């Protein structure tokens, strides 16, 4: 029989140690894991094909027991392979989303990336991004996507959101990610953009594309990442823009002060 490795079922590796690896290393590590799993599955399949039920000398209880064990191993490997593939896909999305959020320190670009993540990675058809105003009550409706008729989402029809959706209002206060569906809100998920203890705003997912399955626990990792990284990327971009404005002002003053 071919070497099929340790048949003891193992649970998939937890995500935390893997997340500490760099993005490229992480993807390489997972690829290698998948290759190993595929190799083991192939070896097991070869072994099973060689154990033919037609061989009379092998049709004893011991053989049946071995066959059952091999089939169980095969199923276990197949499910581990699927789980690894799913984990790889989720980690790829997390890596790409993080990378892109911090790629350009420009507030408009960060907002565009948040919209990109919502559409392309989360499959959101309708969503709104609310950002707290610095010196005024309420939130700026920084992005609204997926509908044209303001009556369709009247709470977000104006430039400022002043409250009205209990789940959104609560998230703005407590900074906790909320996954719907909710009985008192049209939102499917409310994602706080949170830096340390400060809630800078929220991303409200209102509808998913029809072909997209409902949000599941798996999606929570990406939503959690969005919650932390979108906020820090936005804050960094705002600070960078403010510093850039100040620098330009100072340069202008220096040019004015210099003798011709």
């Amino acid at each position, binding site marked *: 029989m071919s070497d099929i490795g340790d048949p003891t079922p193992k649970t998939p590796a937890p995500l935390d140690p893997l997340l500490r690896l760099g*993005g490229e290393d992480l*993807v390489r590590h997972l690829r290698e894991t998948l290759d190993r799993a595929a190799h083991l599955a192939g070896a097991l399949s070869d072994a099973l094909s060689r154990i033919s039920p037609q061989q009379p000398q092998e049709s004893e209880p011991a053989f049946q027991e071995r066959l059952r064990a091999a089939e169980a191993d095969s199923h276990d490997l197949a499910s581990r392979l699927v789980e690894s*593939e*799913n984990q*790889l*896909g989720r980690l*790829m*999305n997390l*890596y*790409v*989303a993080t*990378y*892109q959020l911090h*790629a350009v320190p420009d507030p408009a670009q960060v907002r565009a*990336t948040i919209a*990109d*993540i919502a*559409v*392309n*990675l*989360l*499959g959101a058809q309708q969503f709104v991004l609310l950002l707290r105003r610095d010196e005024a009550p309420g939130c700026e409706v920084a992005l609204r996507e997926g509908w044209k008729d303001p009556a369709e989402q009247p709470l977000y029809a104006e430039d400022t959101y002043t409250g009205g959706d209990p789940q959104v209002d609560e998230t703005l206060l407590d900074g906790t990610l909320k996954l719907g569906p909710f009985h008192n809100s049209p939102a499917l998920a409310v994602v706080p953009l949170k830096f340390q203890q400060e809630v800078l705003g929220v991303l409200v997912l209102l509808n998913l*594309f*029809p*072909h*997209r399955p409902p949000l599941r626990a798996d999606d929570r990792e990406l939503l959690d990442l969005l919650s932390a990284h979108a906020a820090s990327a936005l804050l960094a971009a705002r600070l960078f823009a403010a510093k850039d404005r100040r620098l330009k002002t100072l340069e202008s003053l220096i040019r004015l002060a210099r003798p011709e």
Partner: protein
Amino acid sequence: MLLCSVSELSTVLVVDDSALMHRVYEVMLRDRPMLHAHDGDEALRLIDQRSDIGLVLLDINMPTVSGFEVLDRLRAAGRVPGLAVIVITTEGRDEEAARGVAAGAAAYLTKPFRSEQIRETIARIEARSAS
């Protein structure tokens, strides 16, 4: 009938206005040579200039020149089905997929997709091309 000739060595041209999606493809298909276009005009220019492009991942929802317009122009120029085009759409509507395939696309995918979905789709196209 599929006439495209695409293999693992062919350069993949990614056509998408989203920087995020370019990065997604880079990670998902990191073992393949890849070129990037951020709009339809740039894509058509690259396809004219580069003979090593064998596969195009074409986003449908792009400003100015949409993916369908790119596909129509490629068909008018006789470049498809020789060039394998995978239409990528967010909408997931059957009529969009049918329109893409009627216009000469080899396959279509709806976003969000997993890496194995795109790898399997490409493998199917390569297998058909080789047979």
